[in-house]
């Protein structure tokens, strides 16, 4: 299918299309946070713990800081972590899945055993442990979440390689003397990408939730605002102002919802045979 046909197919799923627009809105707002936020997110004010009002659409926190501005700036970390961690997982998962499926035999057994282990281990506990012991920081969080997300990708890619490696075009490539690396990355991998992309959308959503969880427990980057850390601040003052928790949590849930719906749309387009799940 051509690119244009794919787009038309994608737009049949209205929920996915709207989700895509909303994700773009989230990204643009986060990138241009300086321009969009009405106040500086760190400036203290005299009006503390306000509810939503004309001056402060989402109210203020106990130090008089504007919640809307903090929610806008707070989008940066989850988005950054969501996409970078997923990119890391994809890279690793594709490498491991391709080698496992292509070479088979002992390579496959060892790599799949490792995959199984990472799937079984309580990964959030592991992430907590690593960040708590090695120190916080956005890049560390990206790395930890990224390094824990590859098994899902590896499994899907491996399954594709197992069926594709026996096909004629692979045999033909081998017959004209193409190297293993060339066959893996040039011939088979492009065909294995569509199902992996669908997994990627699930991973983005999960990475965003994981980052929020880590920040909620106080393991986020202390110098940056994130929805998780806003919810953590709100936890202590929830009796005084529930709004502190309402808005960051809504933003977080909405973004995760959009990513999931977008993923469903991609799934419909790339894997039409699988049908609606």
């Amino acid at each position, binding site marked *: 299918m051509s690119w244009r046909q794919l787009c038309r197919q994608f737009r049949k799923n209205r929920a996915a299309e709207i989700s895509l627009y909303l994700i773009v809105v989230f990204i643009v707002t986060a990138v241009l946070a300086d321009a969009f936020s009405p106040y500086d997110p760190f400036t203290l004010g005299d009006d503390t713990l306000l509810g939503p009002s004309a001056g402060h659409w989402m109210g203020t926190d106990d130090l008089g800081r504007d919640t809307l501005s903090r929610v806008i700036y707070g989008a940066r970390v989850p988005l950054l972590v969501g996409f970078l961690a997923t990119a890391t997982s994809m890279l690793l998962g594709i490498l491991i899945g391709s080698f496992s499926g292509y070479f088979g035999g002992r390579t496959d057994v060892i790599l799949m055993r490792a995959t199984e282990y990472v799937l079984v281990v309580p990964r959030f506990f592991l992430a907590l442990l690593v960040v708590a012991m090695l120190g916080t920081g956005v890049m560390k969080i990206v790395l930890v979440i990224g390094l824990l997300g590859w098994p899902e990708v590896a499994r899907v890619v491996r399954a594709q390689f197992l069926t594709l490696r026996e096909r004629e075009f692979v045999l033909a490539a081998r017959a004209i003397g193409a190297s293993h690396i060339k066959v893996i990355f040039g011939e088979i991998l492009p065909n294995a990408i569509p199902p992996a992309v669908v997994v990627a959308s699930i991973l983005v959503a999960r990475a965003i939730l994981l980052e929020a969880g880590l920040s909620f427990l106080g393991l986020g980057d202390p110098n940056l605002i994130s929805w998780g850390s806003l919810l953590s601040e709100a936890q202590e003052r929830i009796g005084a102002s*529930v709004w502190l928790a309402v808005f960051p*949590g809504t933003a977080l849930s909405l973004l995760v919802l959009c990513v999931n719906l977008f993923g469903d749309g991609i799934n419909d387009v790339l894997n039409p045979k699988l049908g609606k799940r």
Partner: protein
Amino acid sequence: MAILNFVLRRLFHALPLLVCVIVFNFCLIHLAPGDPIQALVGEFPAPESYIAEMRKNFGLDQPVYIQLLLYIKNILAGDLGFSFYYRQPVLSVILDRVPATLQLMLPALLFSAAIGILLGVLSARKPYSLADNTISVFSLFGYCVPAFWLGQMLMAAFAIELGWLPSQGMKTVGADLEGASLIVDRAAHLVLPFAALAIRHLAVNARMMRSSMLEVAYEDFVTVARAKGLNEKAVIARHMVPNALMPVVTIIGVDVGFLFTGSVLVESVFGWPGIGRLMYESIVKRDYPVLMGNFLITTALVVMVNLIVDLIYVWLDPRVKYTK
């Protein structure tokens, strides 16, 4: 006998995983900034004599591979270290908290499995009907809303605003309750964290069961059952559900790990004194031995639950043999 064999073999398979976790903890101790002894003891002040003893026990003046062997030996002997914050051996600190977490997790697991499966079946009976769409929308939201935020919202609504339920802890502190009032008190404390934890898994199970039911709906054995003149209820209950359950049981097994994740966060929101709350406290107190021990014990628990799920799987599907 076959079952015992199966269980033993699976446990034997899990052993390398636990060793991997121990080795991983060992690597963390050495990667952590500063002296490894700090990671072994935690940042809560410990007596000099204990530190000297730890140095000797873990062979910190010897080559790394000997340190690793000593570390594995100590852990496998059940010595996870001593927590100076709790003034107890790490193992007993953690085991003290396990029952509370299980009290929260098991009801959530069972409820979300039972009701999730039921909702999935109802949903799949008439795809795209009003009931199906309602259930689908609900499960989509349940799937996207983080459990800890849901917990905060439930707490704000039912504990703070309406005052119907307690917001913190697992029992009324200081109250000397007995009999029925004790059970009511415990149940009242359980409701909100349980709901926060269960809803996500309920959603996942309902979604999974729905698609699984729709997949078996076109299988030959279903057509045969209908052709035999079985009524629709019998076709669903006896032929579709047992077959559709298989992937759902797998997902429930995989989800146990996520249930632990949810419990760390939900326990922190509700001050529930389980291992999740312990994890949070040890992060704040920099009580590293408890953190590492917790990771190991939780992994072992997940392995155990997965084993139970596997047994259920074999029981559900006679084609799968214990020998596999």
